[in-house]
């Protein structure tokens, strides 16, 4: 009975330790991953039904769609079978590494033994040369040359009429691939930590508004649920983001509140975030965005604790939660404030915050301006010559102002934010259109990932491991020095044999350099004219 148990265990172990499994898992992961790049993940059903209709026809597409949903294809990288494949992959990787590490370790630690000259001559890398010198000089110089290439000759053996030197280096490079495997496991651990303790949400924050929560992805909510969610968010705002106060104001326990938060995809931040403004900078004369920027302020305990302008690639992090600039857009039906900077000819400046229809006086003059029109993207139609609004987004905002001046009478002009020269009036005073504030929202990606440091460390480890595994090798070499005499002349025959775990050509060149260095020194040592 006892024996049978071990066999079952052995069988399971052998199953996971087999490279055939590795190959099957690689093929399975690679081929199934393709599905998720074709079928749009976590998308609206209509998107994918439309895609499927192209392949299966309109009538069968919904059926195929339902089958795909059952198979988890619509969110396949999180489906039970894909996750199982990843688990299988890691178990296989760990057990294979455990299985093979002792063998590799023995190769690393194995002391080198002297070899028979005939064996040396059969090694993959070999080299022979003869130098006119004494055995001792040759030995000293070869040793010096070897150590300058960081081959430490720990052992030499004297044979009849010959000396054998042998050395190895880079044995530890055989461990490089285990380092790579380790880093993959670290990445998995980091990913699990992130999935378990982190979150990934979003927040669309209009200019001038604040929030003490972020949204997570949820199942579609019913209308009643949506209403309750709105109400909860309002009460949470009035409780200044304090979760226990929110529960109290709602008259429910905190556990129930937490459950509701979870259901409605609300993630309390523990502080309040305000968007002061959002701005898109454009490359001059084009509609190509150069930078998206939002000024964010963090409020905690009624105090401003942090203020930062974020850009794409430059997020803000507070208490482990990071806010990324990810999108932007217009707030539906929003009424904003026109921010104008007015400068008279005398140099008097004034910044004005105005609503639509409001009037203002240009300082030092009797000219009155009234805001009468606005376009988020003003352009002149090249065919008709008429002014048109070519986008709903604030690509090229312009404000229409009606002026009433005792000298010039009434006239209307468009002032464009991106073209300050449009704001120069006939009398030389200037109006700068700074912003139509409060109508845009900044789209923030909000996330916390405590596992990301694992990922960073694992990345460095993986890079080192890959470098060692692919660009360094374990090299062994044996050198036999045999004195030869032919008549009067005394010379030493040097026979080198070696092997490298990879990159044999580079090893060959290294041996050539070692020998030529030794022989050059020997040639230099020889007294001139002795020949």
């Amino acid at each position: 009975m006892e024996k049978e148990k071990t066999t079952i265990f052995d069988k399971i172990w052998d199953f996971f330790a087999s490279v055939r499994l590795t190959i099957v898992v690689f093929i399975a992961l690679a081929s199934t991953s393709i599905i998720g790049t074709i079928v749009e993940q976590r998308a609206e059903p209509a998107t994918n039904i439309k895609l499927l209709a192209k392949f299966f026809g309109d009538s069968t597409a919904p059926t195929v769609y339902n089958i795909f949903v059952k198979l988890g294809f619509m969110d396949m990288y999180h489906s039970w079978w894909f996750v199982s494949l990843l688990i299988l992959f890691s178990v296989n990787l760990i057990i294979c590494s455990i299985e093979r590490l002792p063998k590799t370790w023995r190769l690393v630690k194995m002391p080198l033994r002297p070899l028979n000259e005939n064996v040396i001559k059969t090694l993959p890398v070999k080299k022979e040369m003869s130098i006119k010198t004494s055995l001792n000089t040759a030995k000293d110089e070869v040793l010096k040359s070897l150590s300058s290439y960081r081959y430490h000759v720990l052992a030499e053996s004297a044979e009849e009429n010959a000396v054998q030197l042998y050395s190895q280096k880079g044995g530890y490079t055989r461990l490089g691939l285990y380092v790579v495997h380790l880093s993959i496991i670290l990445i998995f651990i980091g990913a699990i930590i992130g999935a378990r303790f982190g979150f990934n949400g979003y927040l669309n924050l209009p200019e001038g508004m604040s929030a003490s929560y972020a949204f997570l992805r949820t199942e579609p909510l019913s209308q009643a649920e949506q209403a309750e969610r709105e109400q909860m968010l309002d009460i949470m705002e009035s409780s200044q983001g304090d979760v226990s106060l929110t529960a109290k104001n709602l008259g429910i326990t905190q556990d129930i509140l937490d459950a509701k938060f979870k259901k409605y995809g609300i993630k309390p931040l523990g502080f309040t975030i305000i968007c002061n403004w959002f701005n898109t900078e454009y490359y001059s004369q084009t509609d190509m965005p150069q930078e998206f920027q939002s000024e964010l302020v963090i409020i905690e305990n009624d105090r401003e604790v942090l203020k930062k302008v974020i850009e794409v690639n430059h997020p803000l992090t507070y208490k482990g939660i990071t806010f990324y600039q990810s999108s932007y857009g217009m707030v539906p039906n929003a009424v904003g404030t026109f921010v104008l900077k007015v400068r008279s000819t005398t140099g008097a400046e004034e910044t004005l915050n105005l609503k639509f229809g409001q009037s203002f006086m240009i300082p030092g003059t009797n000219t009155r301006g009234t805001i009468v029109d606005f376009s988020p993207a003003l352009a002149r139609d090249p065919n008709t010559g008429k002014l048109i609004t070519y986008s709903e987004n604030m690509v090229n905002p312009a404000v229409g102002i009606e002026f009433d001046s005792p000298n010039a009478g009434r006239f209307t002009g468009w002032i464009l934010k991106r073209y300050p020269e449009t704001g120069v009036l006939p009398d030389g005073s200037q109006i700068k259109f700074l912003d139509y504030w409060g109508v845009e929202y900044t789209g923030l990606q909000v996330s916390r990932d405590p596992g990301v440091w694992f990922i960073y460390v694992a990345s460095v480890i993986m890079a080192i491991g890959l470098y060692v595994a692919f660009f360094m090798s374990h090299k062994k070499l044996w050198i036999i020095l045999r004195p030869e005499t032919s008549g009067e002349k005394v010379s030493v025959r040097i026979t080198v044999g070696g092997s490298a775990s990879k990159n044999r050509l580079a090893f060959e060149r290294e041996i050539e350099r070692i020998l030529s260095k030794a022989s050059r020194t020997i040639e230099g040592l020889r007294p001139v004219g002795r020949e």
Partner: protein
Amino acid sequence: MSSSTFFNISAGAYILGMVVYISYIAFRNKNIGIAATSLTIFGFVSQSIAFIIRWVNSYHFWLASRPESTFIESLLRAAPLRNLYESLVFFVWSLILVHLIMEFKYKNRSLGAFVTPVAALALLFIDVSGTAKEIQPLIPALQSNWLLFHVLLSFLGYAAFGVSFGAAVAYIIMVTETKTEKTYIFWSIIVGIFLIVLIAMGIDFLSLTAVERKELIQNYFLKATFRSSSGGIVAVSWVASIAFIFVIWRYGLGLKKILASLSITTNMLEEIEYKGIAIGFPLFTIGGLIMGAIWANSAWGRYWSWDPKETWSLITCFVYALYLHARFVSGWRGKRVAILAITGFITVIFTYLGVNLVLSGLHAYGGT
């Protein structure tokens, strides 16, 4: 002279080089071989100059819009690796670089006949795509120090995989004996598809007006043949393609004879096939996957979002990891690993171009 002049010179030199490499294989004259190498080196130097000029120009372009940038920052933002055009140009440069290194290392010119067509295909693709050859402003998402290193290493990796692919195809051609062998059919189809796409893109190029070429490549890619609005043309394209593959299958053994008569050995091809992967795999994993993930984390807040580009890079890594494990642990050799090396490069092409042309995702700027 301008950057594009130097680039056109280099493109001409490469395409001429391809012809000369192929005639070297056919005539086996040493002087022809030297001419092929010289042309390629000349093209490479010319392209390097073009690359530097473009970098300098886009450095000034960047400074014009962001005068407050530091020297290093401007240099990094100005690296001409920002869109499909620039990346294809850099791919050609990397491919030729890796090829020249291999040629000098293995002292064998014949591989040029297999690598230069890949470069020619990329060059033709550049011309057909015709998109955004002028220096463009850098969109916000790409304004990161990671851009240069991420793209640089990924593309050196792609190029190494490309050389490995060339060697693997040559290897498969040399080791197949009869027309009924599965591997023989496999290579004749692969080489056939490769050449058909090349020809179809040539037809695109000839049949399209300059205006149409200004559109996104997705809109006109293979529009003159397989994706034509006329059903007749589509049918003819398919029939012609099948006939073409048949011709390659019928006369393909001749190629084997030519290769066998050269100083190419299957051992050498196997080694180049492996070397390309041994260089490409770490470069691509570090530069493409790792750096890409770190950059994604700082730009999008997630180091991995299963975006199609990311997923296809991972698939590429899986295929090459499979190659390495099959070869070193399971002891696979010969045809089986060569087929993996070819499959690997097909995933590379899809990672690089297919994702941008066919699928959508966060990496969409690679397609314009």
